[in-house]
């Protein structure tokens, strides 16, 4: 990184600095506006969109929370935790089986997993709808959890397998001599050595499940089961005139993932770099 530019060079680059700064404002300002305006009344948002609230209406948040966001929030937490836990667990098991298998069989599993990366969820919408209907799972949280896990497995398997492959055979042999069965080797050797890739997979899956929209609006009809992204649509329709409350709802919906991003940024970046696959 060359931050050591000569002063003259720095001056020549001023337009570029300005451009980068303007771009940062273009990105950050709407988000900041959302937070500030979420404390205003509708009429104040309309009359004075740029200013600070004359009175900070904290009750907008209480109102948003009571008018459905609390329920959507809880559903999102349940669906996200279940999908993430299941994806990481099943992917780790699969990756472990793959490194123990003969390489020819493992290659077949690998191809099946990689093929899954190619399929966009949009393409499977209608058959999935009928399948879940036939299984009696439409309008249950399973209608989100099961497809989320299935669609996030390929990426998680590939990420975890690549780390598992690098674990030295000697460690496995030593554990086996110590009397570990195959599940014990997974628990005591593989998983402890793969914490960061497991976290990366969890972050990527959690991010997907928290934000997924299409399955969540198509497979769930009942408002009480909706997750935040789908629930916000009915929330908007119910609150067409109460802008402040709506913006408070949006802020509540965005906050957890932003906090997680700031806390786990390293894993986000690792996931972005390793996966290069956006939900």
């Amino acid at each position, binding site marked *: 990184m060359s931050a050591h530019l000569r002063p003259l060079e720095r001056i020549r680059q001023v337009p570029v600095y300005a451009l980068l700064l303007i*771009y*940062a404002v273009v990105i950050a300002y709407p988000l900041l506006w*959302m937070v500030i305006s979420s404390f205003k009344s509708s009429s104040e*948002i309309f009359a004075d969109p740029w200013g600070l609230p004359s009175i900070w209406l904290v009750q907008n948040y209480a109102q948003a929370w009571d008018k459905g966001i609390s329920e959507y929030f809880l559903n999102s937490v349940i669906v996200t935790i279940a999908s993430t836990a299941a994806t990481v667990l099943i992917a780790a098991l699969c990756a472990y089986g793959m490194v123990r298998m003969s390489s020819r069989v493992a290659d077949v599993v690998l191809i099946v997993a990689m*093929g899954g990366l190619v399929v966009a969820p949009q393409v499977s919408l209608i058959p999935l709808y009928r399948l879940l209907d036939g299984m009696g799972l439409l309008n249950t949280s399973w209608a989100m959890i099961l497809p989320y896990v*299935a669609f996030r497995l390929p990426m998680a398997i590939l990420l975890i397998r690549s780390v598992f492959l690098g674990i030295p055979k000697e460690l496995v042999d030593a554990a086996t001599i110590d009397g570990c069965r195959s599940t014990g080797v997974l628990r005591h050797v593989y998983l402890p050595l793969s914490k960061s890739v497991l976290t990366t997979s969890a972050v990527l899956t959690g991010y997907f499940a928290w934000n997924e929209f299409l399955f969540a609006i198509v497979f769930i009809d009942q408002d009480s089961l909706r997750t935040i992204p789908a629930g916000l649509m009915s929330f908007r329709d119910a609150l067409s005139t109460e802008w402040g409350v709506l913006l408070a709802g949006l802020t509540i919906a965005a906050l957890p*993932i932003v906090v997680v991003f700031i806390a786990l940024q390293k894993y986000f970046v690792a996931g972005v770099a390793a996966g290069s696959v956006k939900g």
Partner: protein
Amino acid sequence: MKPLTRTFGNALYVLPALALLGLFVYYPLIANIVYGFFSFSAGAGEMKPVGADNFLRLLDDPIIKTALTNNLIYAIVSIICQVGGALVVAAWLTRLLGPRMGGILRSVYFLPAVISMTVIALLFTFVYNSRGGLLNELLALIGLEHLQTAWLADVDTALGSVIAVSQWQSIGYVCMLYVVALQQIPEEYYEAASLDGAGRIRQFFSITVPQAKEMIFVAMILTVSGAFTVFNEPYILTKGGPGNTTQVLATYMYNQGFFQNQMGYASAIASLIFLITLVLSLVQMLSFRSGKD
């Protein structure tokens, strides 16, 4: 352990993953193509075989043409902004700024990518509102009232407004990809080039671009397949309207399947989306293989 039980034991480890992939990813994919040859509705009603009718209908449905064109425009704008623009931004961030400032800006740019598109799209309805919307207010502030319009309801601006939201969200994401790649380029390359008298623009094209070639390619596939499967932004912002001016393949499929109750035709549209993404993936795989040789 005996080899046989060992093989069996290993199969048990991969079984849950394979079962889920088979049932929820591969089965629907195949079923979808079969469904295209039938006429049926969302309810329990029977499926009537209609031959290739649904697929033939794709060919002369004017809305399919609109949708495909919109997807294509989406792809072109995304390539310019996300594949090209994000690379320039990433190069500035890594070459001109120190790690501290570069890191902060990079995170700010990335922020929208972690937030749900529902939140972002609903937020942008406030930006685009014809009365009291931020964009129109801003135009008034700088004396450009004559440019004010109902951004999402005006047939001339609706598509551009929808596409702009996607760029706003995704440029930072691709930029992050690029920064990770550009940080691997050895500093000596730039030092040598600068001793040879190459300016920054020269260096960008003769070092940065070739060194980031692989990531540029990844970004290309990512943005183009994203552009052909896009659903959330147009659905939430305009539901494909006004008229069908912002209709894309995925919103049209959803509309046909779940509003017009023409599940067979919707499946045929889904097959078209799959065909496009399949071709893109094949290009990706083939190029990666040839790249490795």
